[in-house]
């Protein structure tokens, strides 16, 4: 705990530090974004009726508006923000999955929510986010960019175009990464 503390928790500043390669900046940033996203998600769901298609992107956008000063933010930090948000979003959703897993394992008392009854589409098997999260860590070591693509596209709900923009690469590259990642992850989860 003797590490030097960051001089500021200014978010834009932290984003810049992070993009300059300062890993610690991300560690400070993530929780802030995590919390804001979480709040937005809760707010969103309170307003929307269960079963409504969830627009993850909208959540991130809200969080973005809340956390970032639009006046002096450039395009680049906006993209950085999305990258951070994607990681946070991944963490949030995996946390929810873990919580849900625990409850399913343990409790009989939990009320089956309306959303749950409505979202279970017949015959379709959902994705095990906890297993996916682990597989994604492996993929990260193999190909970090693919992992980022998955975070942005799948966890944050961005389109391929938006993902490409956020990662500063071409749409085609993202398309390739995405398909390969999907195949790779699916294989991992089927093991």
């Amino acid at each position, binding site marked *: *705990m003797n*590490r030097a*503390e*960051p*001089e*500021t*928790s*200014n*978010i834009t500043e932290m984003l810049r530090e992070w993009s300059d390669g300062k890993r610690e900046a991300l*560690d*400070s940033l*993530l*929780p*802030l974004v*995590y*919390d804001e996203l*979480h709040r937005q*998600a*809760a707010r969103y*769901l*309170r307003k929307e009726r*269960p079963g409504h298609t969830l627009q*993850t992107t909208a959540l991130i956008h809200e969080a973005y*508006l809340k956390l*970032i*000063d639009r006046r002096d933010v450039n395009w680049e930090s906006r993209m950085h923000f999305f990258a951070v948000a994607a*990681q*946070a*979003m*991944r963490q949030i*959703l995996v*946390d*929810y*999955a873990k*919580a*849900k897993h625990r409850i399913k394992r*343990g*409790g009989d*008392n939990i*009320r089956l*929510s309306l*959303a749950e009854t409505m*979202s279970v589409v017949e015959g*379709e098997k959902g994705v095990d986010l906890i297993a996916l999260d682990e597989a994604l*860590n492996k993929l990260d070591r*193999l*190909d970090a960019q693919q992992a980022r693509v998955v975070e942005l596209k*799948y*966890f944050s*709900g961005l389109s391929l175009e938006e993902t490409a923009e956020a990662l500063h690469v071409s749409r085609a590259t993202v398309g*390739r*990464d995405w*398909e*390969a990642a*999907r*195949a*790779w*992850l*699916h*294989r991992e989860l089927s093991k």
Partner: protein
Amino acid sequence: MPTIIREKWSEIKEIFYAASQLEPAERAPFLDESCKGDDALRREVESLLSSSRAAGNFMQDPAIGEVADSISDEIGKFHANKILHHYKILKLLGAGGMGEVYLAEDMRLERKVAIKILPARFAQDPERMRRFVQEAKAVSALNHPNILTIYETGEIEETNYIASEYVEGETVSERLLDEPMNLKAALDVAAQMASALQAAHGAGIIHRDVKPDNVMIRPDGVVKLLDFGIAKLTEVRSGSIGSEAATAIAAHTQTGMIIGTANYMSPEQARGKEVDARTDIFSFGLTLYEMLSGKRAFEGENAMDVIGAILQKEPIQLRHLAPIVPQEIERIVNKALRKDREERYQTAKDLLVDLRNARQDVEFQDKLERTAAPLQGHSDTQIDDSGTRNIPKTASNAESAAAGIKHRNLGFAALGVLLLAAIGFGYWFLFDHSSNSKQIDSIAVMPFVNEGDDANVEYLSDGMTETLISSLSQIPKLNVKSRASVFRYKGKETDAATIGKQLNVQAIVYGTVIQRGQELALHIELVDAETENALWSSDYKQPMANLVSLQSEIARDVSQKLKIKLSGADEKNVEKNYTENAEAYQFYLRGRYFWNKRNEDGIKKAIEEFQQAIEHDPNYALGYVGLADSYIFMVEFADAAASEMVPKARTAIDRALKLDDSLSEAHASSALIYRNQWHWAEAEQEFKRAVSINSNNPTEHIWFSVYFRNKRQFDDALSEIKRAQELDPLSPVVGANVAYAYVLKNDLISAVEQSKKIIELDPSSPLIYELLGIAYLKQKNYQQATVEFEKAVELSKRTDSRYLSSLGYCYGVTGRRADSLAILKELNEKYASNKANGQNLAAVYAGLGDKEQAFIWLERDFDRRSFGLPEITWRFAFDNLRADPRYTDLVGRMGLPQ
């Protein structure tokens, strides 16, 4: 993963993607071409292609769909009427970043509680959770009136929850929705907040998230600070944790920053530095600023803006937003808001002192406005040299006084001048409300408020209150609430109607005392509890030297206004102050002030003061009574040896009785000494004498009740303690004794009813659990008794040897020998430092079935003439010893019936 794949991954990826874009038939030739005989490469690509075909819609819809139900579940996780453990959920009170709060009913104790469900992510770090719980309990155990009491923490369906006192009311942020608070209300809330912080900081606990949302105001004006230390759960360590950065969210922290509303952060929090007590002071400053101005000190469109402002900008000066705010208060706010914490108030205590002074000045100024205004213009001519009385006032003035409090910015500089003008003449008024004609037969004297600039003369305001209570108690047929009942209102602003209801009285006396130099000014008001109308009020101004006659005068005036016809003798009693010497009287008041602190320091100081009182007036009977009471308390609260103190007490009390045999207090103290010496007949005689002179002193009835209990006269014990309760309805200790008396009479239903009342009075009192434990002991349900005593021990932080003793007994009876022995060890240590008596150890041995040791320890108490030893006649822990001849012998030697 084979190295080959890792090395060739980008190649694999390219080939895979290209192949996937081809028609199936074209794929094989393409792969032949691309892989050029590299089998491993080809196998990997084919494997991915087949996985891709099988994947279908895998990951095509965003991940959030997988957990949407969980997210919505977290909003209002529990529905009404859901049963969780012994709680029944009634409704959702609110939800936020720190979780959801439900109103629930504790079905076991039949009371309402607030249950906070913490967000699941908090649970990911059990160690942090544990520390939070520990801290939350510690702060709750401070039992501070302005800190939310936590009953229990635990897990429900793998969710962490906190059950706490349910506080009805509104938060400061809700209160501020419409308009800023008025000056007095804001200062009142601020002082209570500061008091809570002072207590918490004293225990080494930082709140970390002081803000208007976390301050609750009850309808009666009592403020509760919520969510102590909870912010710690969301703190994040700054610094790197490695690639799985997100785990930082749940990481252990020492330093860190708070996630949440940025608006109330301190600069050091915003910087992610370590926080300390001064952090709370800054956030407190922001809250006070907002209460006074209705605006946040630091605002911004987003968190970053706000943080920037906190770090760099100064808030708009209060005077521009709220011109009524006096300079002194602005100074306090500014000092709390210094960016450099070294320049802030260093302790909540300093802050509280300044706040209280400022509040007193505001209140005083207010009073001046009320009283001086109508008299302006003729003040020069109407100053009455004697300074005591009386300029009639008109009803309209009285009404303006009753209309309450207005705030004008007169400035503190003008105060002194006004003060001199105002106290130059007293006045009184009486106006025609129908209630005035009815006779008042019950009354409560609120603790006089010390409005002087010297906080050290609190003994004077407290003492004058006590003297008035004691004088009025002399009046037959007048029910005067005891000191203990009324002093719980000290420092709080409770309206007359509430007090009237709580204490069941018709009228209330309010008083303020100001001592400036050698001059004493008093304002006394008699208020009808039902209508809240002032029945009468009067100002007095006297040199300190006239203190004694002033007290008599007040007592006489009040009793006259009560329209009670007094006989000549009664009147004499009412007016008697037992000394003509003002200095002696002051020492006496100071002595009682310290005596009431009931701790070692206080009692030692009390002895000095009483000795001074006697020195100034060697014939001052009450001075000797005070001295005797202090010696007895030295044994009870300062662990002094009975053998040394009892003779001293006896000498003092004999002297008092010789000086004034009609003094009820003296006979009561004499009875207490006899009781503690096991001289039962003499004790009873003295108790009876004391009560016959004055039956309005609850303390005497409590002492008398214990006497009966020791003699196993449980009916008499009950009636005495019930009388004490009539006089002192709000005391948890008296309530507990009533319940105990019911248990002894085997009337468990009434005992439970009583216990519920105690819960209302003091929800966190270990007494309740002790009582429950005793009730279970009575039913020989040792398992359940164990649980209750464990709780009592925990709540008393293992300091109370009696609870420990009962618990050790239960452990022994239920075969938990090791636990029992551990408690014996603990008690042994306490015994060595006089913090436990032999009886406490004997009870544990009795539980273990070791009668030999039990009697050895009881005999030790006997040898030391331990005050508490007669308790063995009714404590259930000794039931198993009663058939033993050694028991009969011991009880016989104490002069008690067997």
